[in-house]
């Protein structure tokens, strides 16, 4: 029994030391990882914030929502940017590792834009038509009122939140096997810009040098462009929240940074960068 007491005493001391160590103030370095859709916005936020808070260092990298969520689970990022909500399996992993379901902070809104080449005659598509196009059922532009030319599909890699969101909410089945996957929305836009038969999807903020396609809920509904107003009032049918995830409720410098992002100043940058504010 004496041995037990000694072991128990030593263990208690070690645990007290660990607790003390764990609550030591963290250095003012914040890592942000995840969504490629959000990366230009996240970089802008970091750049502006660091200017007014020079003692804080914020490191932003993309890689996709899935990559960011994995980084959050394995502890290699403080903030994960995601263009889709966490999946159940990801929550389970967070729960097992940190005894928490994570903290979800919607920080901007986005309309997933359908990019067409500027020479494409097609101006509007319904959700069903988009599903048929991206699942490979519709293979020729003439089937949706365009030229007699094959449809060339450009999309994101499966680690992308946009890929998952678009699949779950628009395609609703497997993507066509000939859909060319590209690393980032900028690459999708670039591919569509250079391919007169190309079609792609991605964040509205990247829509430069391509035609935005109007989208309608079904064949009888009016079609809308992903403008600020249409996204805000819910008329544009493929809009979503963009999130920041953390393991625990933010404290210290991370809390200050998040509060600033949600402040009018941070949300003003959301609009400037081509996204839509949450408030």
């Amino acid at each position, binding site marked *: 029994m004496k*041995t037990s007491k000694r072991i128990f005493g030593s263990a208690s001391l070690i645990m007290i030391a660990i607790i003390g160590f764990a*609550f030591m103030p963290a250095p003012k370095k914040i890592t942000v990882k995840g969504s490629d859709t959000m990366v230009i916005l996240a970089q802008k936020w970091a750049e502006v914030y660091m200017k007014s808070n020079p003692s804080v260092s914020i490191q932003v990298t993309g890689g996709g929502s899935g990559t960011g969520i994995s980084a959050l689970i394995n502890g290699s990022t403080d903030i994960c940017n995601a263009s889709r909500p966490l999946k159940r399996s990801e929550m389970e992993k967070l729960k097992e590792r940190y*005894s*928490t*379901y994570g903290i979800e902070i919607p920080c901007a809104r986005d309309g997933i834009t359908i990019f067409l080449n500027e020479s494409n005659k097609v101006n509007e598509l319904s959700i069903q038509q988009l599903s048929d196009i991206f699942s490979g059922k519709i293979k020729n532009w003439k089937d949706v009122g365009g030229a007699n030319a094959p449809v060339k599909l450009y999309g994101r890699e499966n680690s992308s939140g946009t890929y998952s969101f678009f699949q779950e909410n628009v395609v609703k089945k497997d993507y066509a096997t000939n859909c060319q996957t590209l690393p980032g929305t900028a690459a999708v836009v670039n591919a569509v810009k250079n391919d007169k038969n190309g079609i792609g999807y991605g964040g509205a903020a990247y829509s430069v040098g391509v035609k935005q396609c109007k989208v309608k809920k079904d064949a009888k509904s009016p079609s809308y462009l992903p403008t600020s107003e249409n996204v805000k009032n819910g008329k544009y049918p493929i809009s979503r929240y963009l999130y920041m995830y953390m393991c*625990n409720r933010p404290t210290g410098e991370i809390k200050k940074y998040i509060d600033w992002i949600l402040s009018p100043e941070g949300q003003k940058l959301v609009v400037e960068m081509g996204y839509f504010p949450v408030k």
Partner: protein
Amino acid sequence: MKMKRSILTIAAGLMTGMLFTGLHVSAQTNADTLADKVSAIQEKITGFEDRLTTDEGDLSKLTKIKFSGYIQSQYLRYENPSNYPYNTFMIRRARVKLTYEPASGVAFTLEPDYQPNNFTLKNAYVQLNDPWLKTFSLWAGKFDRPDYEVEYSSSNLEDLERSKVITSLYPDEKAIGVKLEIAPPRIPLKIQIAGLNGNEGLTYSDAAGNVINAPQQNGDFDKYKDLMARVTYGFKLGNFGALNIGAHVYYGKVKANSYDVLNSDYTYNKSISNPGNSVKRNWVGFEAQLYMDVLGGLALKGEYLVGVNGTPGYYSTTSTTSQSVSSSNDTLFVRNITTTAVSAKPAIEKNFMGYYVYLIKNIGKRHQLAVRYDYYDPDTKISGKQIGTNKYAANTTNITDHYDYSGSANGNVIATDSRTIKTVTNSLSSGTGDVAYGTWTMAYSYYFTDNIKVQLAYSVPLNEKAGKVDDNGNGNVISKYNVNNIAGVLDYSKVFPQNTLTLRLQVKF
């Protein structure tokens, strides 16, 4: 001079002509070479494209195969004197999990466990997921029984080992059968319904204590199949956390393997006509897990199980024959004796109860503290003092004679006696298997990375004080041991030391 000038002019003209011709030829040659080079590069690119297509095809096959696994290496130090050696290094788990998805919605999983002197197959199942609603999945093979702590991988266990009630009811965690899972993607609801053999990992013994089923070999002991169902639902509590609640029911039977069945208090319950008939294994479990964000992750998890757990008995007969001859007066006695010895142990249906409660606190990203209290009473119908006293005994000896005076020899009467002797030893006593246990476990985990962690745990099992104590202070519920040539007795009338210290290193990939 004129001539000289003419010659110079001609020479200059010739040279210029030659130069232009040379340049033209050279330009032509360069153009041809460039075209050849472009053509060669184009061919190379085409070759690379073909190769890339082939490689992508091969790679896409490889992405259908997933490897994961973990190794747990640990040092243990026991206080229980019957444990020898009292300290040891061991490999607790060395598992590799292989999942192959040949088509969308179909997955095969194989998970062997490699031990230095043993190899066992832990998981081996086919999983069919519905591709339309993404809600239903059908499992067939060997997989975890549907229970919270069973399904919680031991690579994630905060207190290193599962609770006693779970390891007693669901030994080895896995069972063979089929399972239907219903988990709608947008609703935090999960329903599991499983049909299982039900005997996996359980050990049944004869009257002498010898194992009569086939533990660890997945042998099905009887014709009865068990049914298990579990429902869980999750509530989000905003950014505060989440609450999951659930319940499961186990409806099973096991072959009685004997003619008598006892109640939980060791009193006679009933006789059954056929030892192939069953005793019940029925219980329910309720679970809840609360996750909060209080200066980091904080979890409170618990489960309560109650029901009836039947254990088969044993019934065996051995017969011998002998003959004796004796004479008295003018009668010759010939006695044919058939001796039948019945060694029996009645089946018993015990009422049990057990629960566990975890409190887990994460500190920062790397540290985790956990405390658990778990309790298991395998027989709630007898108190600690009744253990060792409550017993059932139906030992009988019956002798029957049948005389036949049917003949004579040399003037003597021959009397033939056909005697049958039947001795029945049929008993079962309460004992150490009925002792309740409450166990405190404290554990600390340090995560070097997401894949590597070290854990230190100290468990303090407290046995229920069982039996009666004689005038010399000795209890009647004991367990004898002889380790390293040292004999001893564990006296359950006292709480004896059984604490265990574990230091574990785990690598997961």
